[in-house]
C-alpha cells in the first residue's frame, strides 16, 4: 500500500480528479496550502512599500493506492497536472504500514 501526496496548481484540481477517476482510483483528501520550490515569487508594491510574494497558493492531494495501482495513479496525476510552466508541483510517494476503515473496521487492502 502506498500513500500518494501531490502538490499541484489549484486550477488543475478538477482535471486531476477526473483523470484519477478515469484511471479507476477512488477517493482523495484535498487541502489548501501555500508553497514554493524553485519557482520564485514576484515583487509587488503596497502603499509605497515593496514586498515579495514568495508563498504561492497550491492544492495538496492525498490518496491511498494498492502497490499495483500506484504507477497508474501517479501517471494520471502527472499528466493531468502538467502545464509545462514553472510551479507545476511535485508528487511524493510514501509507504503505508496500515490503513483502517472506520465504519467497518476493515484493515489493509479492503480498506483502501
Amino acid at each position: 500500500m502506498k500513500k500518494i501526496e501531490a502538490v499541484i496548481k489549484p486550477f488543475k484540481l478538477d482535471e486531476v480528479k477526473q483523470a484519477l477517476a478515469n484511471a479507476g482510483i477512488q477517493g482523495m483528501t484535498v487541502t489548501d496550502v501555500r508553497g514554493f520550490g524553485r519557482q520564485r515569487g514576484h515583487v509587488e508594491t503596497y502603499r509605497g512599500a515593496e514586498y515579495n510574494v514568495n508563498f504561492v497558493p497550491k492544492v495538496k492531494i492525498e490518496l491511498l493506492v494498492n502497490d499495483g495501482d500506484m504507477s497508474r495513479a501517479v501517471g494520471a496525476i502527472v499528466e493531468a497536472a502538467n502545464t509545462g510552466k514553472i510551479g507545476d508541483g511535485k508528487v511524493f510517494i510514501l509507504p503505508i504500514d496500515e490503513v483502517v476503515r472506520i465504519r467497518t473496521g476493515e484493515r489493509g487492502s479492503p480498506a483502501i
Partner: protein
Amino acid sequence: MRNKRLALALGVALFGASLGPVALVRADDPPSVPQYFSGANADPAKPVWPDPTGGGAGVWAAPAGDTKGDIPTSLGPTDLYDRVAHNLFSVNMVWTLVTGFLVMFMQAGFMLVETGLARAKNASHTAAMNFLIYPLGCFAFWAYGFAIGWGNWFSGPVPPGWYASLGPGLSVLNSGIGIGAATDAAGNATGAFTYGLLGTKGFFLGSAVGDVSVMALFFFMMVFMDTTATIPTGAMCERWAWRNFVLYGLWVALPYCIFANWVWGGGWLAQAGVNWGLGHGAVDFAGSGVVHAMGGFIGLAGAMVVGPRIGKYVKGKPQAIPGHDVPMVVLGTFILAFGWFGFNPGSTLAGTDLRIAYVVVNTMLCSVTGALGAMATLEMKGLKHDPTMMCNGMLAGLVAITAPCAFVDPWAAALIGFIAGIIVVFSVLFFENAGVDDPVGAISVHGINGLWGVVSVGIFATGQYGAGWNGVVRESYVAAYGADGVRGLLYGDASQLGAQLLDAAVVAVFGFVMAYVWFKFSNLITPIRVSEEVEMEGLDIPEVGAPAYPDFAVHADTRKHAA
C-alpha cells in the same frame, strides 16, 4: 460676467444689511429688529433665553402661542412676521440636525476604512476603538468640551457674535476667558475679548444653557469633534494598547475644543481679521483645519510616540503589511463621502442659506477629482491602481474642500481635489519612507490635506459669499466689489492667505505639540504600546477579548524580517 457678479454681491450685501444690526451693532446700539434676531432682551429680569421648549422665537403653528388664533384676517403684519421668523429658525434647525445625523454616520465609515486596512488578527480591536471613540468623545464633549469651545460663542469674534440662524437662544453662550476684556458704555464687561481664548459656560449642558438652539449647536459640533477623535485611531492601530486609548478618548476633546474656540468659537484666530487686518481672520467653513488637520497631526504625534509596527521596517526599509478587507475600505469610503454631504453643507447651520447647493456641488466635485488625482499619480509612477490609495485620494479631496467649500467656484473645487489626490499619494510615500508607520494614511489624508484645504481658501475664495465673516467689513472692498466677502489671492485679497497660513501653522504646531506631550504623559499612566508577544498574536483577544474571525484560521504572523 462682472455685472452679474456685482449684482450678486449687491444682493448679498443687501441681505447682509437686512441682518445688518446683527453683524455691525455695538453693545449700546439697540437693534431695530425683533429681539429674537439679536438675542437681546427687553426685560433682563424676565429673560426669554435660555429657551428649552422653542417657544421664545416667533410663533408656532396652530394653536398659536400668541392666542391670536390662525384666521388670516385677524393677524397683522407683526403676527405674520412672528410666524415667518419661526419657520425660518425651524428650517435651519431641522437642517442642522439632519446633516448632523449624516456626520454621525461617518463614524461607521471611519470604522470600515480603518478595520479594512488592518490585519485580520487586529480587526476586532481596531473596530472597537472606532466604536468606543464615539461614546468617549461624546461624554468628554458634554462634560467640558462644548463649554470651552463654544461657551463664549455669542460674544465673538465681535459682539454680538454670530448671526443666530438657529435661534436667539444662542445668546446665552456669553461667558469666556481671553485677553483684553471689552466693556460697554457703563464700564461693565460685555463678555467679549480682543483675543478670545476659551469659553467657560455650558459644562455638562447645565440649565444656564438649556436652550433648543444650544442643543442643536451642541449636537452638530459634537459629531464634528468625534470625527477628529477617530482619525488618530487609524494612524495608531495594530499596536495601541486599549487602556491608553480609552484615556485618549476622554482627552481629545481638550485640544480640539481649544482650537475650535480660536477659529469657530469667536477666538483669536477668527479675530485675526479685526485685530491684525488679515483678511476675514482665519476662515475654515467646515473644518479642514479644526477637524481634519487637528486629527491628522494628533495622529502624527501618536504614530511617532507609539512607534512602527513590528516588521514594518527591516533595516530601515518599509515593508508592506496589507490590510485584510479591501471591500470594507471601499464601502467605508463611500459612507464617508455620503456623510460629507452633511459635514460641509450642514456647516451653514441654515437650510435657508441656499449657498448649500454650491457647497454640495463643490464637495462632490472635489471628492471625485481627488480619487482621479490619486489614480493619475499612481499611473504616472508606474504603480497599479491600488483601490486603497484611490480611496485615500477621494478622502483627501473631501478633506481639502472642507474649508473652502462655500467660498470657491466649482472649477476651483475640482482643481483643489485633483491636487489633493496628488498630494496624498506623495505624502503616504513620504511618511512611509520617513519611518512613520501609518497603516491607513490618516496623517496624509487628514493632516497634510487639511492644511492644503485651509491654505486653498486663501487662494481660491471668490468673494461672492461670506460678507461680514468674522466681523470684518472693509470699506475699500465694499467700494470695489459691493460687499466684503471672503476673498482669496486670485480675486484680490492677499491678506486672507496670510490668515490661512497662520491658521495652518497654528493647527499643525498646537495639535502636534499638545498630542505629543499627552501621549508621552499618558504612557506613564498606562503603557501606550502592547507587548511584542501580544502584537504578534494579534490584539483582538489579549486587548478586547473578542476575536474578529474565530472560525477562520488566520495566517500565523511570522513577519519580523524581510518577507
